[in-house]
Each structure stands twice: as structure tokens, then as C-alpha cells.
């Protein structure tokens, strides 16, 4: 089929380029320039969808992004399938595959349409009143049924094959909408020399001018003026034209977000092209020229396929050369539908009748219609329709003065083109936090007070006539570049259109007995809205939520004003008294992936790798997550399992020597005459008298008195400290330092520099550590006498400057070599070569955790959880009591932090020496604790120790230190395990190895 309903000429399609496509498996042909909607209409297909609740057959209501009915799934491959697309926005390409949705077994025969028969039993909110008994039936019976029935399209089952791009842009003037007002604004602003960005959701720029056949602008046919205007704008180097780009969000400080459809309309796009592009634009000035939406009339059965908005019917003819019917009834309360009637008649559509709700219709358009011989009835209402999958009759009746209407006369037709008038599109203005006002003359909300550097122009602020829109747009564009408004261009052949009607069309008989749709997609009828008000829903927000009007995928673009009018009448209030619901972003739906952009897999978050990462990877490391870092857990050798690798690395380090990459440790250079005083105030320990060349373990609390971070701090000079932090806490600690320095102690002269990534840090631990380093170090005496535990020296290693520390987190003799990051691998390999001579191992984080736990050293975030004080950890003695203050000191004096019976760190030895307790398991008093038993505490760390040949754990236990020597139980997935409570140190209690 090539299009029975296509006129021979006219429109913006290319009849020389036929395009094949399928809908529900059936093959059709359209033309280049068609949308799926126009091509289906051309082929005589009106039935395109089913409604949400009653599964009513539905056709096109509109021609644009506000379409509520014609939703389809598009895509022949599962990895490119997209549900819920509006057929009016899907551009045709060769091979396009579309399917209808929300029906079974087929679009024309949908069993769930049975819902419509029971509609009087399922009014708005019925589900709040039912499905409550028997208890439990909701989740087991009713909800699964409802969930299956609900929903529109189906989600794709495969991973998305496309990619998406993000762009950031700045401009002087951003113009939203490229209709007459937007184009005039763009011309004025561009001629003023401004950087202009012009956005429009449609494939072609021009808005209503694309369907303008009669008007002349500046003495030229409108199409010629449009072409000339676009040519001028396209030639201007500082103007960016963005068709297919919907600005969907208007944020603070003139920040706009837009979605550009880049390749969905192409049959075989370049795979390098993204599918969509997300624009984030900051504009000095914004001109909103978003146009207006035509409103449906709310009469019974106003939803059958073949009933559409009048300007959409006209538009399908003017834009695509499609006649949407052979015999039309025009139902209107606005002059613009007369224009539609005239143009449809000229194309050969029989106009059975123009039924105008208004008592009089005397504008230029109605006069022209009469002059053309079209039958016009004023004071006439549609009181019903007939037809099933396509409208067959309109029931037209006299409108009475009391607001009702007479019995309808059936008039045969296959198209009802309706117009309740026009609603300015104020969504983006409202998103920008601008204040709306209700215009009594227009019966519409229009922009009143702007909240940002923004101006609305054209139909979106009620300037509907072409001449008004062009002048208003030009004035807005000029104002945006502080220029005088240009002289208005002449416009002929586009008389102003007036009129409009809000709310329920005058009914015949009881309106409670008919279905007059307000929100088409969600099947909300006028009687649902009045029911909501009867049930005490007085706020429009309650009415919306109770009936779901305005909550469909079109977000109420065609329904909100009618719903509001019906509600205000039912409540006996004026429309502004009832008020609008909040306009929320996005203006039209936005693909998740477009917002997410490239952030997937390894690009989801930056991966931080140490300078030694590659070496570790080459040498069999298994990595784990630590914040953004990848850290080596252990280094499995061929044939080894995890346990064997860990045991080998543990024993090797304890018996000989081990090397570890410690580069992830946070490092902060703290410098300044008051550096010592600053650290003195930040940490619980004393730093004022720490000697140059010495290190001290530092414990940091938050203001609530709980342990927050720890690390070793070295004094390199009177005014210079090398501070280390936990790997994950580094960013937080330096932020905190800045915070305190800037807000609490601005008098202190001290500066902070993050040096984490400047240094590669290599830890060498074990009895042979010194032996490995001695041949390589220059200018530093690393003998036990010259360089005791907890000291730092500057010198060279293999000719590279180093900060060499003598510290240990394993309990063995330990050194930490810091070298500039770029030399990290070379130095590591040099030390490793020495290490091989003494049978050194390389060990990972898993091993470090065991070795430190054997010594009872804590890990912040494991032994602590933000509720643990220094004394709880047995580190109370570290607090420099002589200091007048430090962060957290005041809180440590609070009653709860000083009370008896707090949880204290202890060691646990399972009775079964080979049973490893789960970290996080609860410590209890009883072998079979009753439900509701309070735990004594929990296991913080638990390991198998290759050195001890048994398992051990650390735990925080209430009154723990007084329980040492006793027993307790620990919960496991199978039951409880008996444990002995011991001191939290399991190896080399005297610390002799450390000082070797």
C-alpha cells in the first residue's frame, strides 16, 4: 500500500522516496519526511493503541509530542527496542519496525477491553476501597493481577547496543522553540551579534510555519520566509541550530538541559554516532517560544479512533499530504478549527458539519467557512459518538442556556476534528520558578513574573496570531541583546483566531452515565474528576493523584486545563482559586542512558591505580575495591589456592621479609609556622614537641568524640609534616583540615597539600627488611641505633630522593620507602631484586589485615564504626591530657561516652581453633539466646592465622576488658560458637620484633 489517503501534491514529504516499514508485522509504505503516524494515517490506519485502564481502541489525538494515545514500540533488534514512543515523533526510515502495545491477543481484538464493561464498578480510586480481604490477598492475589494488567509497553530484554553522548555549552541567548516567535527572536538576537542557540523538538525548524499554506510574511509566502530565515541563521557563524532537540529541564541560574535525537531517524546510522546527545547549556538570557497546545473537547466517547484535534487534522494534510478522513464533523469552540475545515474541504474532505459550541461565531475564519459554503451550526454540542475501531457518527445536539444539550442527531462521519481552543505551553517557564497568572480573557494561565533572566514570547504567553508572535519574538530577541525592537514584518492572510472552551462540554442527560475523557491515556473521565471532589479531594493535587489525571506519559499537556475547569466547577471555585499542579521536569520523557552518558563499567567511576599496579597485575595479584582504588589482596602462584597464598605471604613476611604496595595510603603535606599547633588541635595526640625526624601515630576524632581516622605523622622540619591517613579517608581528612583551618582557626598559618598520588609508598617488613634496603639507600644511616622505630629521614635510594620512614603495621621491623610516583616501579623492582636474595615475598591487603590483627592494631572502619571512642579501643592513654583542647575532647566528657559498660575491644579465641567466626557476628552470653536477647557486642575482625595455626578474632564487647579470661558465645549461621575472651594481641606481646 502506498497511501490511499494521500493527496497528489503538497506537504513536506518527498514522494520520490518511498519508504517501507511494518506495523504489527504488516508491511506499509510511506515517504521520506513522514512520521510513523502520518504514514499509518496515509495508509488508512487510525487504530494505533489501547488505553491504560479500559483498553479502549485509540487513534491519533495530536500530531506532536503531546500525543497520549498512539504509543508504540520501535526496533527490530531487542538491543535497540524502545517502548512507549509516540508515533507522532517517530520519523520514518527504511525498514522501521513498530509494534502496538498493551493489548492481547491483538490491537483490534483486545480481551482486556472487557474492563470497559465494568467501568461503573471501577471508577477513580476504586482500588483504595477494595482488595482488602482476606488479609494477605492483596500481595498474593490482587496485586500480581493488577501489575500484569498495568503498564504500557514492554521493556527491552537485551543490553542497549547504542551509545550516548553528553555536551556542555554556553551561549548569550538560548531560544526554545523554532516557530515564528522563536525564529524572529533568533534573527533579532543573531543580528545583534549574540551567540545564539536555537532548539526545537521537531525534525524541521519552523513550528507552525511548516503547516502554513496561506499566510505571506514580509511579502513572501510563509514557506519562503522560513527558508530565507533558516538560511540566514545557518550562515551566521555564532548561531547554533539544533532541531530534534527538546529542552526538557529549566534549572537554576539559566541552566537548560536538552535531549537531541541524533540517529534514531536513520536507517543505517554511522556506528560512531551516538543515539542521543544530552545538552547541558548555560545561557545568559533565555527566550521561551514554546508555543501552545490545542485542547480537546470533553464530550462522551470523545476518544474513538478518527477523533482528533482540529489543527492536527489540518497539520497532517499540510505537512504530510494526508487526509485523515473522507467525511468530517468539526466540533469546536474556537475559530482555528474553521481554518482546518476550509483546508480539509479544499483537499476534498467532505465537511458534514461545523458544530460550534459558541452561540455566535463571527470571526474572519468562520466567515470564510460560511462563504465557502460549509454548513455551520452555532450553539451546537457533540453529545456522543458511535463507532468501534473507528468513529462512524457524531451525535450533534442543540446547546441549551442551562448548560445542558438536547438529544443528539446522528451524523455519519469518519473523522471528528475538535478544538476547545489553545493552552499556552508554560511548562518550562513554570520549571524556571516563574509565577503564572490566570488571564480571564484568554481563559489560560500565562507567564507573569520571571524568576530568571528569561522572557516568554509568542503563543506560550498568549500571543497567538502569526503577526503577534513574530513581533513578540523579535522584541524578545532584541531585548535579550539589549537592542531596540526591530520594525514589525508585514503579515497577510493570517487573521487572528479567537474563542475557547474549558471543561465538560454541555451534556445530554446524566453526565455520570457517560465516558467523556479528560485524560485519554489514563482513561480519566469527567465523572472521575467530579467523583474525586465529591469524596473530599479539594486540592488539585489530590484530584490529580486520586484520579491519575495528568499523570500519564504526556503529563497532562492536553488534559490539565479541562480537568481543572471540571474540578473548579464541581468545587464552586474559580480556576485560579483551585490552582495548578506543579510542572515538573522533564517536559517530555528522557532516555536514562542519555542522562548517564558514557558512565558505564570502567567509566562509571574513575579507577585509581597505584604506580605499582601494573607490576602487581603482572605478578598474579587479585585486586579488590577500596573506595576508588584497586588494591592487591594477595598474589596467587600457579597451583595455589587463596588460603595457601595468604599463608605463604604471612609466614614469609614474619620469618624473612615481605614487600607491600602501600601507595594508596592518604598523604597530606601540612606546612606552616602553626602546622604543629594545628595538628595538636586536630588529633588526640600531642604534636607540639614531636622532634624533627620523628613519627607519631595519630588518632583523629570527629566532633562527637568518635574515632574517625588514623595514620602516622612525621615531622620533617619545624614547620613541615608528612601526614598519612587511611586509604579511603584521605579526601575527607584534607577537606576537614581545610574546613577547620578556614572556619574555626583562621588565625593559624598553615597550608595543606594532598600528596597521595605524588608518592609511591613501598612497605618492607620482616626481620630481613634492613638487609634488603641497606645496599640501596644513600645518605641515611638506617641502623637500629641511628634510625629507631617511628622515625623518618630524607635521603636517596638508587639515586632517587626518598622519604624513608621506619614504621610498622605488621609488628615486624618495618620500613616505608616514599619515592616520587614516576620512580615507583623502578625503585620497587630494585628493592625486589635485593629481596629475592633474602627470599622476600610480596604480600597483599588480606595478609596485611591478618598481620596487623595478630598484633591487635585496629583498622578504622572495621574496629570502629563511628560509635567507638579511643578508650573503647584501649587507646585512651594516647590522649594528651595536658592539651587544652582537641577536636572531640568536649564530647568525650558527655555522660554516655564516659559511662561504665561501654563496648571495649577484646580478642576472641574460638574454642574450635579451626573455626573462623564471621565478621559482624554477634557476641552473646547464652549458647541458645532467646529472640530479643541484647547482644554483648560484635566481631570486628576474624581470620585464620598461619603464624598461630589457628583462628582468632577481635570484637567490641560490653565491659569487655573486665571479661578477659572468661567465655562467651558468638552467633554463626548454624548456631553459636564458644569463644574465650582474651587481650586483643596475639603475637609478640612485648613488641621485641618491632624494635629489632
Amino acid at each position: 500500500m502506498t497511501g490511499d489517503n494521500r493527496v497528489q501534491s503538497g506537504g513536506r514529504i518527498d514522494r520520490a522516496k518511498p519508504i517501507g516499514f511494518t506495523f504489527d508485522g504488516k508491511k506499509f509504505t510511506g515517504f521520506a519526511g513522514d512520521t510513523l503516524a502520518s504514514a499509518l494515517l496515509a495508509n488508512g490506519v487510525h487504530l494505533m493503541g489501547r488505553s491504560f485502564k479500559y483498553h479502549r481502541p485509540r487513534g491519533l489525538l495530536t500530531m506532536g509530542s503531546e500525543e497520549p494515545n498512539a504509543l508504540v514500540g520501535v526496533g527490530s533488534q531487542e538491543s535497540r527496542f524502545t517502548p512507549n514512543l509516540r508515533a507522532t515523533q517517530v520519523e520514518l526510515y527504511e525498514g522501521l519496525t513498530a509494534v502496538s502495545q498493551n493489548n492481547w491477543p491483538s490491537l483490534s481484538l483486545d480481551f482486556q477491553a472487557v474492563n470497559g464493561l465494568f467501568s461503573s464498578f471501577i471508577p477513580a480510586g476504586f482500588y483504595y476501597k477494595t482488595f482488602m480481604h482476606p488479609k494477605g490477598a492483596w500481595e498474593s492475589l490482587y496485586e500480581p493481577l493488577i501489575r500484569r494488567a498495568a503498564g504500557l509497553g514492554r521493556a527491552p530484554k537485551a543490553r542497549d547496543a547504542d551509545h550516548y553522548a553528553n555536551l556542555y555549552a554556553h551561549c548569550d541567548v538560548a531560544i526554545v522553540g523554532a516557530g515564528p516567535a522563536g525564529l524572529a527572536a533568533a534573527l533579532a538576537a543573531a543580528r545583534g551579534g549574540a551567540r545564539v542557540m536555537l532548539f526545537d523538538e521537531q525534525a524541521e525548524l519552523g513550528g507552525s510555519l511548516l503547516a502554513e499554506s496561506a499566510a505571506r510574511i514580509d511579502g513572501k509566502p510563509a514557506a519562503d520566509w522560513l527558508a530565507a530565515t533558516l538560511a540566514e541563521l545557518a550562515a551566521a557563524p555564532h548561531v547554533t541550530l539544533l532541531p530534534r532537540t527538546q529542552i526538557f529541564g529549566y534549572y537554576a541560574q539559566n541552566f537548560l538541559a536538552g535531549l537531541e535525537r541524533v540517529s534514531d531517524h536513520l536507517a543505517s546510522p554511522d556506528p560512531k554516532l551516538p543515539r542521543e546527545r544530552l545538552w547541558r547549556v548555560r545561557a545568559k538570557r533565555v527566550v521561551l517560544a514554546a508555543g501552545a497546545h490545542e485542547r480537546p473537547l470533553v464530550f462522551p466517547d470523545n476518544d474513538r479512533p478518527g477523533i482528533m484535534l482540529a489543527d492536527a487534522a489540518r497539520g497532517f494534510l499540510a505537512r504530510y499530504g494526508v487526509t485523515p478522513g473522507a467525511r468530517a464533523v468539526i466540533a469546536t469552540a474556537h475559530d482555528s478549527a474553521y481554518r482546518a475545515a476550509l483546508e480539509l474541504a479544499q483537499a476534498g474532505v467532505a465537511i458534514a458539519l461545523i458544530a460550534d459550541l459558541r452561540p455566535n461565531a463571527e470571526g474572519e475564519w468562520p466567515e470564510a467557512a460560511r462563504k465557502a459554503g460549509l454548513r455551520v451550526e452555532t450553539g451546537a454540542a457533540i453529545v456522543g459518538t458511535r463507532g468501534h475501531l473507528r468513529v462512524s457518527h457524531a451525535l450533534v445536539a442543540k446547546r441549551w442556556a442551562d448548560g445542558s444539550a438536547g438529544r443528539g442527531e446522528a451524523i455519519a462521519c469518519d473523522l471528528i476534528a475538535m478544538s476547545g481552543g489553545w493552552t499556552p505551553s508554560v511548562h518550562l517557564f513554570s520549571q524556571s520558578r516563574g509565577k503564572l497568572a490566570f488571564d480571564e480573557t484568554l481563559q489560560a494561565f500565562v507567564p507573569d513574573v520571571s524568576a530568571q533572566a528569561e522572557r516568554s514570547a509568542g503563543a506560550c504567553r498568549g500571543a497567538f496570531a502569526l503577526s503577534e508572535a513574530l513581533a513578540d519574538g523579535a522584541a524578545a530577541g532584541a531585548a535579550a541583546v539589549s537592542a531596540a525592537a526591530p520594525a514589525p514584518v508585514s503579515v497577510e492572510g493570517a487573521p487572528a483566531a479567537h474563542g475557547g472552551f474549558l471543561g465538560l462540554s454541555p451534556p445530554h442527560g446524566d453526565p455520570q452515565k457517560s465516558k467523556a475523557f479528560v485524560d485519554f491515556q489514563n482513561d480519566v473521565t469527567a465523572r472521575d474528576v467530579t467523583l474525586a471532589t465529591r469524596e473530599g479531594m479539594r486540592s488539585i493535587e489530590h484530584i490529580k493523584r486520586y484520579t491519575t489525571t495528568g499523570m500519564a506519559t504526556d503529563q497532562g499537556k492536553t488534559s490539565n486545563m479541562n480537568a481543572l475547569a471540571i474540578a473548579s466547577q464541581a468545587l464552586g471555585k474559580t480556576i485560579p482559586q483551585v490552582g495548578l499542579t506543579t510542572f515538573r521536569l522533564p517536559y517530555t520523557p528522557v532516555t536514562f542512558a542519555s542522562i548517564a552518558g558514557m558512565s558505564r563499567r570502567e567509566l562509571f567511576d574513575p579507577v585509581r591505580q597505584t604506580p605499582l599496579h601494573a607490576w602487581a597485575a603482572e605478578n598474579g595479584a587479585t585486586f579488590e575495591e577500596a573506595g576508588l582504588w584497586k588494591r592487591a589482596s594477595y598474589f596467587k602462584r600457579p597451583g595455589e589456592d587463596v588460603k595457601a597464598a595468604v599463608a605463604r605471604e604471612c609466614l614469609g613476611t614474619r620469618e624473612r621479609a615481605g614487600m607491600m604496595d602501600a601507595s594508596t595510603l592518604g598523604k597530606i603535606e601540612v606546612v606552616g609556622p602553626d602546622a604543629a599547633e594545628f595538628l595538636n588541635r586536630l588529633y588526640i595526640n600531642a604534636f607540639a614537641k614531636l622532634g624533627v625526624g620523628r613519627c607519631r601515630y595519630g588518632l583523629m576524632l570527629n566532633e562527637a568524640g568518635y574515632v574517625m581516622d588514623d595514620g602516622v605523622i612525621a615531622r620533617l622540619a619545624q614547620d613541615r609534616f608528612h601526614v598519612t591517613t587511611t586509604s579511603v579517608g584521605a579526601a575527607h581528612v584534607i577537606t576537614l583540615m581545610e574546613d577547620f583551618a578556614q572556619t574555626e582557626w583562621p588565625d593559624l598559618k598553615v597550608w595543606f597539600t594532598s600528596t597521595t598520588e605524588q608518592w609511591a609508598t613501598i612497605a618492607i617488613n620482616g626481620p630481613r627488611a634492613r638487609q634488603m634496603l641497606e645496599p640501596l639507600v644513600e645518605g641515611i644511616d638506617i641502623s637500629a641505633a641511628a634510625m629507631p622505630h617511628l622515625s623518618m629521614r630524607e635521603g636517596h635510594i638508587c639515586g632517587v630522593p626518598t622519604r624513608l620512614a621506619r614504621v610498622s603495621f605488621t609488628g615486624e621491623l618495618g620500613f616505608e620507602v616514599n619515592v616520587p610516583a614516576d620512580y615507583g616501579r623502578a625503585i620497587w623492582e630494585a628493592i625486589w631484586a635485593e629481596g629475592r636474595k633474602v627470599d622476600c615475598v610480596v604480600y597483599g591487603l588480606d595478609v596485611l589485615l591478618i598481620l596487623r590483627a595478630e598484633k591487635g592494631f585496629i583498622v578504622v572502619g572495621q574496629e570502629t564504626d563511628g560509635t567507638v571512642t579511643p578508650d573503647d579501643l584501649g587507646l585512651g592513654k594516647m590522649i594528651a591530657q595536658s592539651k587544652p583542647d582537641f577536636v572531640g575532647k568536649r564530647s568525650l566528657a558527655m555522660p554516655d561516652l564516659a559511662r561504665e559498660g561501654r563496648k571495649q575491644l577484646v580478642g576472641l579465641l574460638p574454642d574450635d581453633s579451626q573455626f573462623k567466626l564471621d565478621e559482624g557476628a554477634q557476641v552473646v552470653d547464652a549458647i541458645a539466646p532467646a529472640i530479643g536477647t541484647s547482644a554483648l557486642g560484635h566481631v570486628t575482625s576474624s581470620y585464620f592465622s598461619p603464624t598461630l595455626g589457628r583462628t582468632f578474632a577481635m570484637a567490641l564487647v560490653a565491659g569487655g576488658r573486665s571479661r578477659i579470661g572468661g567465655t562467651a558465645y558468638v552467633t554463626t549461621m548454624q548456631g553459636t560458637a564458644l569463644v574465650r575472651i582474651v587481650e586483643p594481641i596475639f603475637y609478640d606481646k612485648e613488641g621485641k620484633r618491632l624494635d629489632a
Partner: protein
Amino acid sequence: MKFSYLSLARQALGGHQGWPEQWRSPAPKSAYDAIIVGAGGHGLATAYYMAKEHGMRNIAVLEKGWLGGGNTGRNTTIIRSNYLWEPSEAIYGHAHKLWHGLSQELNYNVMFSPRGVMLIAHSHHDEQSFKRHIYANRLAGTQNEWLTPEQAKAFCPLLNIDPSMRYPIVGAALQRTGGTARHDAVAWGYARGASTLGVDIIENCEVKGIARDASGAVSGLETTRGPIATKRIGVVAAGNTSVVMAMAGVRMPLESFPLQALVSEPLKPIMPCVVMSNTIHAYMSQSDKGELVIGAGTDAYTSYSQTGGLHIATQTLEAICEMFPTVSRLRMLRNWGGIVDVTPDRSPIISKTPVPGLFVNCGWGTGGFKATPGSGHVFAHQVATGEPHPINAPFTLDRFRTGALINEAAAAAVAH
């Protein structure tokens, strides 16, 4: 009128002309025995239980906008009770018990749907933390279990457990009895129940001042609809609690942040449960209407703006696309924000205050919806009797002076 199939059928035959209003819209009286400030879920539940269980009928709920219009109507409706500390387990567990049977209690289908809430672990640290919760919960009789990645995928087939993820999934904690409910219905059901018991719910009535007598005790409220005398005030004003309490000179340990949520277009069912990832800030379920309901993290700065930044929604959708790769072509239909009131220990305050007659229920942060029935139930006891219910006794305002914090954030959030 009792809601039932029978009443629905009867009304259907009469064209639904006979439904009464679900709650009255009275003018404020000059005095009440007690006044609740804030007609969200917690405030309405409080009034309902004060009337039902404490026999107080001469009481009112004041609301500056429309009832249920704050965080009650903006949240992602996740209900679970697997918190770490015993006081938390008690209050959320109390609420969880009340959720079962709430539809019958209120004769209003709140659509409580215990379809399971799964928390995703992305690191060894997450695993330690979740297991600690599970062990603590088991001891308290709260349902919570550990799943392997494969078990997690079996429970939620949409979930990506591919090791190529930036933060691979190492397991999950599942509370099978957790789920969701219909947020508006909760507010409306409590409003209808309270109104039927005689409670005056007064919308569009903003509190402008708190009056106190010579002894310092509260004596009434100044409102945009005139002064109202009362000797007991319960403030349940979520993000605006600090503002209201300042009227009585009480400074609250609260910070208010915008919190965003969004929904997709409606789809046929794909998501059988609720999935949460605290690590990468993504929370998703599917409503009965078919929309994917997605929660984000809070903005980084305090604010009263109900529009969050695009960068926050971006982070969330990145995380959603990473965890559920097949949803990436679906589309965001609506995005909104609410103001959440956050305490230093991330646990609520349900307490008397230094001002006699003034009580406060606030600080629920990002997760208050789940507690609605329990919170209202114990706060009703607090306001009606002046003394705390044993369950809310630990949630004092005073704990920030004594240090007896209930730190739910600390145990979960500090990574290493």
C-alpha cells in the same frame, strides 16, 4: 461509609453519587486539647492513634498546604525494618507489624506489598557491614538474610552481576518481608480514619507563631487562619521542623537537604522487588502502575529547594544503568525533589522538648515513610500522656547532649 465490594457495587448502581467526603474540611475552632502541626503521614497517623487509642477527640491537625503533600507524597515508599541497633529495630519493627493489617485497620487499601527489599553489597566492607546487620537482626527476630550474587540475581533477574561492573556485586542482604505501599493512600487512609473519629484536619493553615504562658508552657498557636489555643503541640513538620521549633525558641540538631526521586514511563512488570545500593546511591522498584520508581541520594548542600540538581539525578541514573543495563533505553517521565530533615546520627527524634507542652517528631531523613504507622503510634502516646512510649524512649532530643546516639549511618557509611 465502610469501603467494601458491597458499597462499591451499591454506589456503582447509583452512579457513585452517594460517596461521602473522605475527610471533613472544618474551620478551625478557637481551642483544642492538642494540635499536631503537619498533616503528612506521621502527623495524620499521630492524630489517628491519639483519637483511637487515647480517646482524644478534640484535637486538630494543621497543614500549611495540602495533606500528604510533603515527603509522604514524594518518597519512593520503601518499607523495611532491618536496621542495626536495637532501638531502631524496635521502632521500625513496630511499624512493620502495623503495616501488616493497616489496610484492614483503616478500611483503606494502602497496598502494602511485602515483595522483598534487597540491599546490594559491592565490596568486602559492605559485606562485613551487611552481615553484621543480619546477625543483629536474627538475634532480634527481624527477618534478614545473606544472598550470593547468583541468589540475588535469581531473586531479581534484572540485576547485573557481571564481574565487569565497576563495583561488582559481592552479595546482598534480603528482607523478604520488606516492600512498598501506596504513599497517598497512607495519608488519605489516616486522614479519613482520624476525621471520622472527630479529628479536625485543617489544610491551608500555616503556623506563624507558638504562644507560651507565663510559666513558659505552650498556650496556643498563631496561624494564617487566626490564633488557636492549646496546651499540647506535637510538631511533625519534616524539613520545616527547624522553622516551626524556632518559633518556640528551640534550636534543633537538624539539617535539611533536597532529596530527589524520579519515575520512568509505565512498563509491563520487570522488577519484582525493591533493590537498594547505598554504595552507589541507586534505589529502584516498580509501582503497580508499571513505573520504575527510582530514588537518588541527597544534594551535597543544605537547601529548601524542592528541585534537586541534574548532576545528582545523573549519578543515580548512571548507577541504575550500571546495575540494570537493560533499562537504559527506558525514559524518565518525572523528576522531583523533597526536603528531608537529617539528624547527626541519622535516627529520628520523637521526644518531649525543653518547652512544656511542646513535643516533636522529626529527623527521619531519607527513610521516614516506612516508619509512618509506628512513628504515629508511639508519638500519639508521647503527646497524649506526656511520657514516652517505651519504643520511642531512646529517641530523645536530649541524646545529643548525653551522647547516647543511635548511629545508623556510622555503621553503614564509613568505608575503609
